[in-house]
């Protein structure tokens, strides 16, 4: 393979003064995707690491692989029931899931490249992760055109309108999901959307949280919750696979362990509190607090969404507060809000909005502390 030579050969056309100068950003985007660029940041106060953003994004995508593979398998398993081979499940799932991935990446990257050429900046890398996250958090039966509309909305309004990668206030993948939920509620919630062809094939597609929302204690075993043998969004069901991804992210130092831990602590304490209060009319009060961590999108959100470095709080103390409040609000919404069975998405979006405020006050309190210290030294 002489791809490198080929790229070097056509490169001058895309540089300043070349024939296709206008498309330079798109070319640059593809080149740096294929090869590590030889010009990484060398000096300046903003230096953090020798890795460039594209490598970071690729590591997150790798961390998503276990959950994705399990999710694809689970699509088949949920539809066909027991007794089929791994490949039967997997190919059934892949036929359903791959079109969603293709639409998500195709449209999202298309818009990103168009923006880069139009605005003359280099292509933003952030979409590598967002493009996979979006199909992973959608119900498998969502019509593809609805997915397409949501992707366009998330990229244009959720991200490019704010200035592209690194400037967005809200997590773009969650913007896509929130948009789809409010726009096409019938396709995004309920008991029939979480398993492929649930209505036609007569399969029950009720999620644990869906059952609880209907005031019925579900009979899903704890082992099934942990392993992920239950209906749900494609990527969210298997806590085990998400934990493998989380271990990988923490080992490489990409995601913040403080946010993950704080989210779990916040959710556990809130769950404990509601368990202690108890209720006779709302069964969710009695759902064991630790099982909240295993069902719905909690684990997926805590590991892959809340830790998004762009939209999370930046300060160390801020990360603790930010994560803790995500956990608190997620469980609070689950238990107390009857219209939303799952609260993780709303909790993360809400705290995305508040993250800059949290950082502001953390920094301010630090400044005040230092001022007081200075006064003491002077006096």
């Amino acid at each position, binding site marked *: 393979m002489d791809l490198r030579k080929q790229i070097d050969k056509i490169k001058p056309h895309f540089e300043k003064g070349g024939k296709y100068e206008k498309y330079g950003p798109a070319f640059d985007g593809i080149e740096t995707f294929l090869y590590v660029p030889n010009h990484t940041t060398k000096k300046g106060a903003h230096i953090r690491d020798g890795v460039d953003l594209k490598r970071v994004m690729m590591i997150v995508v790798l961390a998503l692989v276990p959950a994705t593979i399990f999710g694809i398998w689970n699509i088949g398993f949920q539809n066909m029931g027991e007794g089929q081979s791994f490949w039967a499940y997997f190919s059934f799932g892949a036929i359903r899931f791959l079109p969603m991935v293709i639409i998500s990446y195709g449209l999202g990257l298309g818009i990103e490249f168009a923006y880069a050429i139009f605005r003359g900046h280099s292509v933003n890398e952030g979409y590598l992760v967002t493009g996979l996250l979006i199909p992973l958090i959608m119900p498998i039966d969502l*019509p593809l055109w609805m997915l397409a509309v949501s992707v366009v909305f998330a990229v244009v*309004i959720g991200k490019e*309108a704010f200035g592209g990668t690194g400037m967005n206030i809200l997590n773009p993948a969650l913007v896509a999901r929130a948009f789809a939920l*409010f*726009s*096409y*509620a019938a396709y995004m919630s309920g008991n029939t959307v979480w398993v492929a062809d649930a209505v036609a094939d007569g399969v029950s597609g009720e999620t644990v949280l869906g059952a609880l929302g209907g005031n019925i204690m579900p009979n899903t075993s704890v082992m099934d919750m942990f392993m992920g043998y239950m209906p749900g969004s494609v990527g969210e069901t298997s806590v085990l696979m998400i934990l493998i991804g989380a271990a990988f992210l923490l080992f490489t130092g990409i995601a913040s362990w403080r946010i993950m831990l704080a989210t779990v602590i916040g959710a556990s304490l809130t769950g404990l509190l509601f368990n202690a209060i108890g209720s006779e009319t709302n069964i969710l009060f009695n759902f064991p607090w630790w099982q909240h961590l295993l069902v719905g999108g909690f684990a997926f959100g805590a590991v892959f969404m809340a830790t998004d470095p762009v939209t999370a709080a930046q300060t160390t103390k801020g990360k603790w507060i930010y994560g803790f409040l995500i956990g608190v609000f997620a469980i609070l919404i689950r238990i107390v809000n009857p219209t939303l069975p799952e609260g993780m998405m709303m909790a993360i979006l809400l705290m995305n909005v508040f993250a800059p405020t949290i950082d502001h006050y953390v920094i301010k309190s630090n400044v005040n502390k230092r001022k007081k210290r200075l006064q003491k030294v002077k006096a």
Partner: protein
Amino acid sequence: MSEEKEALFSKNNRALLTDPLSDNNPITVQVLGICSALAITVQLKPAIVMSIAVLFVLVFSNLIVSLLRNMIPSRIRIIVQLLVVASLVILVDQVLKAYAYDVSKELSVFVGLIITNCIIMGRLEAFALANGPWKSVLDGIGNAAGYGFILIVVAFFRELLGSGKLLGYEILGHKGKTIAESTGLYQLGYENNGFMLLSPMALITVGIIIWVHRSKNRKLIEN
């Protein structure tokens, strides 16, 4: 008296009429009157009625305040302006209740809230108190048209995408209980966008209009 020498539709007077349509639009440039733009743009019909109501109130309050401008003591001018606007709004409200009861019910408090529409008080304070009646009338028409134009554009998209209708007519086809019972686009699996019916989407729609407007209109590009 320089005013009388000026032609009725001189360049300056025409600018009073056309400026608020684009360069100085009350909604997209001055960002006034947003609450009503969010609240009553779910359907086209209430938006049109609201635009006409604001047009009436703004033109006549501008005219009346402009005629009275040399008699109003400046300390109590806000009260006088409010009195004029409130009387006109009550007039509109009663007419709507008598002749268009359904729309009046849909608009509910927002007819009464025309009194607090910042565009009206803003024009009275900034224009009618300092200019003659003819110019004030033109200014009123221009600003109300600029307001109504944006209102109708937002309502057009919200009703079309949110309920698949325009002025109540099902122009995208009829949506039955099943796909077989549906016609038009709905037969192909199209669904209405429920988000369009919620106010956040109105804000986003106004935002998109501002975005497009500012990138097209060179006078508005900030550096």
